[in-house]
């Protein structure tokens, strides 16, 4: 289990990195935290000819409060986001979910942008960003553009990034008023790939009716899967226990078409989606209603 040889390039600036990416094209892989890429290379299932190491791009690391909310640089270590007070204040859903991502040793090295661009269907961060209506700032040598998180994920390990584009940062908008959130996940062991996970937010209007919600699942499809029919069903409704149960049922039976693997059949995944969506929405609603929520997600 030793990686095959490759050419190693370590640009010092984003411009240099983009030049190298353009120059080497599909032969090259970007190396961020490496916590997904390097294992694959050790198995020799990935043998990129060129690795462009982004770890010296200090300009891409950091969390800043922005006018819209929170700007997180792509090379920000997951651990930094986990510990960040700004994230806790402005994107509490993200804060709540960070400990579910693998283990501390991996989060110390793994980056926010690396996970987002890798687009593993079992990863937490893509689902969280979709649930948070985040926007991705991406660039090639000549242009910069913004892509909504929901539009960023186009398929299995596939994103809207062009081959010569790089993810620079992600902007998470402020949580609207009267909004609750919750993240739930079940994995075989703490830190394993989720069997199913769900990120939810719900915003209530002054009368306590649903004025917008997100139910975004992971490990049930090609990428983050938004339960749009369930959300549509909640719109304008009072989020009673029945309404939540109904939304979870729609999520499990209509919004997702989960895959099977040795750890979970499709039917089991549907059941977990049903249960976790119920639990997450229940906690999110309680938060939106201003109730104390002590539980921090299923382990």
């Amino acid at each position, binding site marked *: 289990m030793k990686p095959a040889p490759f050419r190693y390039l370590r640009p010092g600036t984003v411009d240099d990195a983009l030049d190298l990416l353009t120059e080497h094209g599909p032969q090259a892989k970007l190396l961020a935290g490496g916590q997904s890429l390097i294992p694959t290379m050790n198995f020799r*299932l*990935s043998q990129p000819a060129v690795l462009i190491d982004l770890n010296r791009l200090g300009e891409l690391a950091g969390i800043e409060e922005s006018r819209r909310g929170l700007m997180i640089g792509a090379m920000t270590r997951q651990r930094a986001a986990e510990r960040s007070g700004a994230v806790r204040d402005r994107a509490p859903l993200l804060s709540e979910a960070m400990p579910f991502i693998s283990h501390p040793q991996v989060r110390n090295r793994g980056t926010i942008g690396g996970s987002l661009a890798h687009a593993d269907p079992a990863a937490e961060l893509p689902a969280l960003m979709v649930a948070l209506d985040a926007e991705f700032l991406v660039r090639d040598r000549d242009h910069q553009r913004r892509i909504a998180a929901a539009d960023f994920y186009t398929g*299995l390990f596939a994103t809207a990034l062009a081959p010569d584009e790089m993810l620079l940062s992600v902007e998470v908008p402020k949580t609207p008023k009267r909004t609750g959130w919750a993240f739930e996940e079940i994995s075989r062991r703490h830190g394993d790939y989720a069997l199913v996970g769900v990120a939810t937010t719900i915003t209530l209007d002054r009368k306590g009716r649903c004025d917008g919600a997100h139910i975004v699942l992971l490990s049930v499809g090609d990428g983050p899967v938004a339960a749009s029919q369930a959300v549509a069903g909640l719109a304008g409704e009072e989020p009673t226990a029945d309404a939540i149960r109904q939304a979870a049922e729609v999520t499990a039976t209509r919004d997702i078409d989960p895959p099977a693997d040795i750890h979970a059949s499709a039917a089991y995944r549907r059941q977990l989606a049903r249960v976790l969506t119920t639990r997450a929405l229940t906690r999110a609603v309680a938060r939106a209603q201003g109730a104390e929520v002590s539980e921090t997600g299923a382990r």
Partner: protein
Amino acid sequence: MEIQSEFVFNGSRDDLWANLLDPTVLAKALPGTKLELVEEDRYEGQMEATVGPVTAARFDVTIELVDKVAPESFTMRVDGKGAAGFTKGTALVQLAEQGPTETLMKYTADLQVGGRIAGVGQRLLDSVANSMSRQGLEAINRHLQGEAPAEAAAPLQLLSRPVLAAIAVVIIVAVLLVVLL
């Protein structure tokens, strides 16, 4: 592993049959593959698969078509071998008319996946199989409807007259790719 699925095409069965056996269509559906007709209904070549972090997985592939019943069904036998593992199996493809411009394809593939890739890739097997075959089928369907197919990342070269069922290859490719993760 067994893959069973179906797909509805917007076109007549005869058109679909012809399209499935048309190399230019196949070329759009299968980037990164070189196949050569070595004898009647038998193809050999190489495939290079890229999915997510998996980059350089090269496979020697042999595909054989048997039991062709135009325009209803065919079976294909596939054998792919590479440094990371192998796949081997058969796929039965059946086309049923559902109307003048609608054809239902049912496919059942029974495949063995082995070696290093089988032991590491199972988490994504199902997803990759579904996603890849769906993409291939949609590409063919777009072509059937006269739309320009989406641009392929790398051109497929078919070096000889193709009498190949694109979809079955797609399924095989899917499985090959699947196992790489």
